[in-house]
């Protein structure tokens, strides 16, 4: 869940890049980290320890600066894609506000994509989250490999496999070359911020309007 710190006037949004192993999630983050203006992004981190065990995922904090007095921070995470890292993936998903599902366009990875999406749904369900209610975008990565004769799934197939039910925005990409990387990031960031603002800030405004006495009313009550 997004962290909205009203006392410090900060909004933190968590976006997770999810997908099968070797689909290019980390490459997405690396590309963003290296190509983005350094003023807007923090250091790319690998979270090291939890107890005496190492937890593996990447984290790239992005800072949008102050908007309406609020410091807006977006944290990009990746999960380890291999099936065996189920526990890590689930943990990284905790408190997620937006998801980029990075699908591998290679035809041989078709089943892995579907499996990973199912895994995502399952993991979200365990946190009582519905994939349909969360901001989600699809990224069909490695599109450039089609040029060298490697059989790729065409976008219609990918859409049919992964996006038939969800109907979320999808982007073709090549993370190594940066095509579609920022388009994906922009889309998910906007969706996530909108989601967070609508869900949390609107809720707060409503409670402010509907809620307890204001300072003046409290003072008046005290005087009377």
């Amino acid at each position, binding site marked *: 869940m997004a962290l909205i710190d009203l006392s410090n006037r900060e909004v933190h949004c968590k976006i997770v890049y999810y997908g099968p192993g070797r689909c290019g999630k980390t490459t997405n983050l*690396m590309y963003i980290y290296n190509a983005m203006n350094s003023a807007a992004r923090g250091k790319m981190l690998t979270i090291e320890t939890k107890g005496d065990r190492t937890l593996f995922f990447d984290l790239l904090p*992005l800072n949008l600066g*102050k908007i309406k007095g609020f410091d807006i921070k977006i944290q990009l995470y990746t999960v380890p894609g291999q099936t065996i890292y189920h526990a890590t993936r689930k943990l990284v998903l905790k408190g997620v506000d937006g998801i980029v599902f990075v699908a591998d366009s290679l035809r041989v990875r078709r089943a892995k994509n579907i499996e990973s999406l199912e895994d995502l749904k399952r993991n979200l369900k365990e946190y009582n989250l519905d994939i349909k209610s969360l901001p989600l975008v699809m990224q069909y990565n490695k599109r450039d490999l089609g040029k060298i004769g490697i059989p790729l799934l065409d976008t219609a197939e990918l859409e049919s496999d992964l996006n038939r039910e969800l109907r979320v925005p999808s982007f073709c990409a090549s993370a190594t070359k940066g095509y579609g990387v920022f388009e994906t990031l922009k889309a998910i960031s906007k969706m996530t*911020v909108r989601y967070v603002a609508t869900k949390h*800030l609107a809720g707060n405004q409503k409670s402010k309007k509907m809620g307890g006495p204001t300072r003046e009313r409290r003072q008046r009550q005290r005087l009377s």
Partner: protein
Amino acid sequence: MKDDKGKDFPEPEIFTLEIEDTIDDLFTPSKQIEIDPLTQKVKDLEDESDDLSLDFDFMEEKAAAPEEAVSLQEVEPIQETEFAQEAQQPAEGLLDMDMDLEMEIEDAVQGIDEAAPAAQADAAVQPAPSTSPPASELADDTENALSELRQQIFTIEWEVTSPQIQQTLDIVSSLLINKRVMENTMAVSMLALLKKILDSMKDRPELVPASAPSLLKKASEYLLNAFSGYAAESEGKQLINELDQIVGELEKTVAMQPTGAAPAEEALPKLDAETRPASAEAEEILQKQDVISEEELKSRPAQDILATHVVELKRCVKRIESLEKLLSRTPGVEGLYKFQNEIRTILERQQAELERLLFEGTGTEAPAEEPVVASEKKETPQEQPAKEPPAPACPWKKLLTINYGDIELGFPEDQVAYMGVPPWLSRSTIRASATVALNRLKPWPWSKLKGRVQNKLSHFDEAVLSGMHFPIVRGIGGQEAPIPSSYTLVILYDGKKGAAFMVAESPISVEIPENSECKKKGEDYIEAEIQTPGSRISVVTTKSLTKE
């Protein structure tokens, strides 16, 4: 961007629109780069950006096989020099994939090319091998297994569970018999050490040092690099040293900890031939022993064979002793010293066992066909009475006796390994436990157990003794006598198994008259009943206590 601090909550719609504008402004690449999928190296492509933008079109994604085969023909000459020229798409694309995936793709590409002209098919098939090293299937298998090992160790680093460790152990075991690995002595040593650490992890994960998982990871990465030709030998040696240290630490810790149900067997480190290095001399001795057992077994009496074994064992022990002395004076080889020390302890124990069989006159009647099995069966003297003419009814000349409820219990003196009142701090713990750790019998943490135990237990080193524990038997002879707070603990141990029980009083030594009658019982932990002129003694032995 406006700073509107006067307002607690901005209007969501306006707020969101403003954020979206900022996202559009900020989330744009400030430079054009490309990431090498193999090395993850970032290349600045600002100069080449125009050319590269032309070679990728999102809309051209349908795999039109013949056209692409033609394009591959064009690419092929570039690929031959790909290692010299960095930014070539085919190499990067293919190197981004798994080995197995590469094979799958290769097959798929071949499938496409079946329909295309022969020349085009050649061109289409060629690029895949050119991007991977021209290695045999064996090499692929090794690297795949090593890659799998690395992944498995990553998992262990995150979460240690028995199935995961077992899977990792399986991979390590398969690698140890891999021909390509066997040619690399450093890899074999490293894998053997990994196996030891994983074995310990499997048995007692809580004892594994915190640094072990990361070291395992380093080792797995080193191995993977070594077989890809990138690893430095010095790094490997250093890793082996570090792994060795971990193994040493683990062995030490395991020896200091109480172990499973079978005390003596499990307290001692396992010394199987697969995991322990054997010196040339030891191998020679083993070979010699093999020769004896095969050729002379049938013709020589079992006693002679046992005597030969005892002599050989003594010889081994002496050699190890001298080596041990040398190691004890050499700093930095504590692990090796401990290793030798453990071997010597085991050998001495075996020697003592064999000597007992030989000189107590219990192993002489072993049948020639199965000398070893027969001699093992004769470990406990109580099985002998029928065969010994001087004492047909009672094999025990002296027993330590106590009153236990309504019955008088007697224990063979040579099996009483410990007898005494436990330190007050441990009394209630022992009383409530199902097992007793010898460690608990120390009055102070720095006290030694060596002087407190007797008979077979006295042969063990302090470290081994500290790790031993014995099941506590309650209710002997069909009754459970009341145990006072300051009870006496008796531990019976026959060199292999042992058990403890609590009694209310200290045992006294009783001589058994020669004409006493001995009736075998074999139930309620009682081995036999001896009828002496004044009393009836129920004999409790290690065997009867540890019998299921």
